[in-house]
């Protein structure tokens, strides 16, 4: 009874406390690089924000509208490729190119949606995977256009001029702020969508498509809307990723494991909530980044460079960081199918039940 999504708990506008916490968190994160200048930390910050954007984006279609897409690499990859190719082949600045990337992804989402939303359940999952595989294989094959497996490398990102200030994308710092800004925009946009008619309609479709249909909701239309919103933010994340990592090829942006990552961020945190993907990203990113590059811990001074721990990870785990994803998802599905957020809520309710003064009132708005 206590596992209600956030939306139905506080739909009457926003809670003041939540808003204060949100603004405080942004302020703290914005001030962070003034105190901590270690590239590794800023790098992890960027990856974390990126994961939050990815999770929020998937959440619109997967969490709220209940359509488990395992094909979000399609939009991520399109975002990455359009931004990258416009920069490399046409010298278009990425902050311009990313709009073209978003437009392309939204168009693609309409095509994919009109094909796959005719299917339900496992068939939909399979269709979303196949469409993405088709795009990956095509990107690998049509080398004249995409350069195939050779991929694209960023040669130079132009200097961004805002008024008199010039921002150069040489260090991690500008990327940190850009990613933070993008993550904030994504969260606010998602919050707004979920606290509107759209959010209600998405959830109605998730809970019972036939019932929703009888209440004046056109499921095909609203699923497409959800997918388009989701694709737009996913493409932005993809474009940003391409600029940040500076290299893309079909397998790194269109691969099945990219699609799976989108789902995992939400599943681990808690699906269908604004907070869930944030928590999921906070669990996943540090773990996989440390495994990918344990040297960073040395840079932080947490461990010494000759420590057995670092050497063990470097020798064994750095190319198998997806192992953590695998273990996490198995543990979450078996023991906490509602994600970390679900566990926290359950604990909170249990604590509350122990307090006799409030123990008996049982409206669902407990968490």
């Amino acid at each position, binding site marked *: 009874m206590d596992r209600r999504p956030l939306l139905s708990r506080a739909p009457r506008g926003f809670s003041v406390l939540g808003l204060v916490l949100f603004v405080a968190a942004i302020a703290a994160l914005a001030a962070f690089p003034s105190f901590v200048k270690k590239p590794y930390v800023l790098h992890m910050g960027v990856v974390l924000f990126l994961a939050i954007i990815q999770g929020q984006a998937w959440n619109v279609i997967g969490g709220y509208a209940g359509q488990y897409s395992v094909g979000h690499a399609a939009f991520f990859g399109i975002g990455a490729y359009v931004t990258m190719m416009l920069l490399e082949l046409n010298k278009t600045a990425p902050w311009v190119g990313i709009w073209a990337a978003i437009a392309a992804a939204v168009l693609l989402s309409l095509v994919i949606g009109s094909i796959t939303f005719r299917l339900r359940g496992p068939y939909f999952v399979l269709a979303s995977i196949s469409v993405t595989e088709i795009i990956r294989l095509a990107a690998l094959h049509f080398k004249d256009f995409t350069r195939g497996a050779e991929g694209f490398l960023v040669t130079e990102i132009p200097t961004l001029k805002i008024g008199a200030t010039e921002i150069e994308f040489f260090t991690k710092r500008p990327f940190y702020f850009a990613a933070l800004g993008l993550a904030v925009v994504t969260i606010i946009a998602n919050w707004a969508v979920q606290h509107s008619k759209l959010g209600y309609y998405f959830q109605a479709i998730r809970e019972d498509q036939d019932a929703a249909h009888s209440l004046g909701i056109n499921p095909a239309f609203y699923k497409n809307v959800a997918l388009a919103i989701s694709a737009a933010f996913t493409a932005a994340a993809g474009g940003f990723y391409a600029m940040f990592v500076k290299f893309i090829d079909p397998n790194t942006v269109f691969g099945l494991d990219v699609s799976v990552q989108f*789902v995992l961020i939400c599943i681990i945190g808690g699906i269908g909530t604004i907070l869930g993907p944030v928590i999921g990203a906070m669990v996943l990113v540090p773990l996989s980044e440390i495994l990918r590059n344990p040297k960073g811990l040395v840079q932080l001074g947490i461990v010494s460079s000759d420590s057995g721990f670092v050497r063990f990870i470097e020798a064994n785990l750095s190319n198998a960081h997806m192992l953590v994803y695998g273990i996490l998802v198995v543990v979450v599905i078996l023991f906490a199918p509602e994600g970390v957020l679900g566990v926290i809520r359950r604990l909170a309710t249990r604590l509350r039940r122990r307090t006799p003064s409030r123990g008996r009132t049982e409206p669902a708005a407990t968490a």
Partner: protein
Amino acid sequence: MNVFLQSVISGILVGGVYALIGIGLTIIFGVMRVINFAHGDLLMLGMYATWLVFSRLGIDPFVSVAITGPLLFLWGAFLQKTLINRVLNALPQNQILLTIGLGLIMSNSIMLMFTSDYRILTTTYSSSSFSLGGISISEPLLVAFLITAVITAALYWFLLRTDTGQAIRATAQDRDAAQLMGINVQAMSVLAFGIGSALAGVAGALISPTYYIFPQVGSTFTLKAFVIVVLGGMGSVIGATLGGLIIGVTESLSAVYIASGLKELVVFVLFLGLLLFKPSGLLGKTRA
């Protein structure tokens, strides 16, 4: 014409192994209604097991089927009993995620143990072939096909003629009814997952002389297995057999007549079309 015949025949030879992969997946789906996203990773385990016994003990891949099969059976049965069994009544998406997670664990553990290097298992006959009426036939593929045919025949016999086989089919047809009839549904699920895994492992062994062996090889086969199973109708063993052959031939024809880099793409395009227009499969009845 010769080119055509040639590609049809090599398509059928490869298709036999595909059929084995598909049958394994379809049995698992039939009995448990779980879509096993780790299926290709089980096949990958079969490949590595084969490679190991070949490179360490010198056991021929086609002989090692007798080892990889039982090994993968036990592993599959173990997975089902300890993990998958717990999500039989969960949401389908959670089942899918669990098997995706298991697949990631398997492929990344293998990567930990053997790195992500590509391995090649070179036998004396790996690239030998003989000519039959102007059509060249790859020896390892032919042997693999023959072994596949024997295993498939044995499996049909098992499912159709033995009590346990009938119990598995009954469970696949209607789990509740089977339970009421006194069939140990739990045991059938373990058995089905074991058989499915064993078939994937055997398929892995059979293709290891002709394919690169690397930790991520599974995902291609997982996807291919889905195509085969949906094509034949989810849960239908005969359908999966035919589906495997059809996919094998489709791939080899599109490699010749379209472009070798596009053969898988063609398969997925056909798959999408099938999902949209006949999701119950070629043999399936369209259910309302």
